[in-house]
């Protein structure tokens, strides 16, 4: 199967600042992929590169095997819901569908109408008069009715209240099943992605810290607590992601393919949220970064 997204040494520079640097990723198709990181980490830059709204300053990126925005064929295969799920405030809901039908060769009007009906959105209503949740659902409707193979969403639920957030994710997951969509969505909150994503990319400070299948990530990360110890003395196959020490005790989060047998450690599981926070909070040395990737 062709990868959803492949990046090799991808970078984007604004003036002297690298918004994204040295990004190498292989994101599988047929998955729901979460892109998580603090604000300003480079999530939007990466997604804009993927849809071809930005051109790379370094390296290369391929999406579904093609160059981003390389002609009408490629544009039709990738849907994009930009940050804050933008709509045209002065246009009605029906206008949005007409616009969608004009601009997208693969437009599926039946799907769009059926979704509006289920959502109870009045076609005559102006988008500017909709609630935040309804606007987000309208933007999602456009993204789905375009019938892309890959749908990319930038922080789609960040501005929504918990109920609207839940409803949005319900509709997104349903569409993923119904239309065999690959999905990439970003968020600065792990809790939004915990249930919905089966593949995770953690982006911090313009760099990819860790990327992988969620089940694999959970199975290979362990929390070790025990008598104080220098992490440098750990076996070579255990990479320290984060560490904290008191005068007597050490608590580490390590990544290890094998089981931890050292009886000095109490070994515990690491939840997804803690795992992501461990990668976000710690600034690993250059060598750890290389090893983790």
């Amino acid at each position, binding site marked *: 199967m062709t990868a959803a997204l492949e990046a090799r040494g991808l970078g984007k520079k604004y003036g002297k600042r690298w918004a994204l640097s040295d990004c190498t990723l292989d994101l599988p198709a047929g998955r729901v992929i979460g892109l998580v990181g603090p604000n300003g980490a480079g999530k939007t830059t990466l997604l804009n590169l993927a849809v071809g709204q930005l051109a790379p300053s370094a390296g290369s990126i391929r999406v579904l095997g093609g160059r981003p925005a390389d002609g009408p064929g490629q544009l039709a295969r990738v849907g994009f819901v930009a940050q804050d799920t933008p709509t045209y405030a002065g246009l009605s809901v029906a206008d949005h569908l007409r616009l969608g039908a004009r601009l997208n060769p693969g437009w599926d009007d039946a799907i769009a109408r059926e979704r509006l009906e289920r959502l109870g959105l009045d076609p005559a209503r102006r988008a500017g008069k909709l609630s935040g949740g309804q606007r987000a659902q309208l933007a999602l409707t456009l993204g789905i009715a375009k019938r892309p193979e890959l749908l990319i969403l930038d922080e789609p639920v960040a501005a929504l209240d918990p109920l609207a957030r839940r409803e949005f994710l319900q509709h997104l997951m349903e569409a993923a*099943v119904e239309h065999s969509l690959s999905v990439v969505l970003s968020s600065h909150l792990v809790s939004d992605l915990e*249930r919905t994503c089966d593949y995770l990319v953690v982006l911090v400070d313009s760099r990819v810290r860790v990327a992988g299948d969620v089940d694999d990530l959970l199975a290979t990360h362990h929390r070790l607590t025990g008598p104080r110890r220098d992490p440098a003395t750990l076996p070579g196959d255990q990479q320290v992601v984060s560490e904290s020490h008191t005068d007597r005790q050490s608590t580490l989060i390590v990544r290890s393919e094998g089981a931890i047998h050292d009886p000095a450690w109490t070994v515990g599981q690491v939840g997804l949220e803690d795992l992501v926070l461990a990668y976000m909070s710690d600034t690993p040395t250059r060598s750890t970064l290389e090893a983790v990737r």
Partner: protein
Amino acid sequence: MIEFHLDSGSGVSPYMQIVRQVKHALRLDLLHEGDQLPTVKDVVAQLAINPNTVLKAYRELEREGLVEPRPGVGTFVTRTLAGDSLAAHGPLRKDLERWLVKARMAGMDDESIEALFMTTFRSARQEDIA
């Protein structure tokens, strides 16, 4: 038809929660042979969870011989877990109740009763394995 719910604070992975809820329903005779499980689309639309989580749960149940996918239709129960043991539930419950009365009379509180039951249960299971 049954409906799933997820407890995010339980520490049990969502796919395992679905597996357990199906088995629970099979044990309690809420699901019978030939019953259909909710479709993947219905489950994700209800719980807002990843479709592969549901598929993984259903594959696990299939591997255990409890359900069977029918392509294009859905997933169906092939075997129930209630079976012959269901009839024995009543008398066994009576035995347990009598035992609980004895434990109370010996001055045990809820936590001690639970601890004693769990340690006995675990050691008996280990002897079974050994």
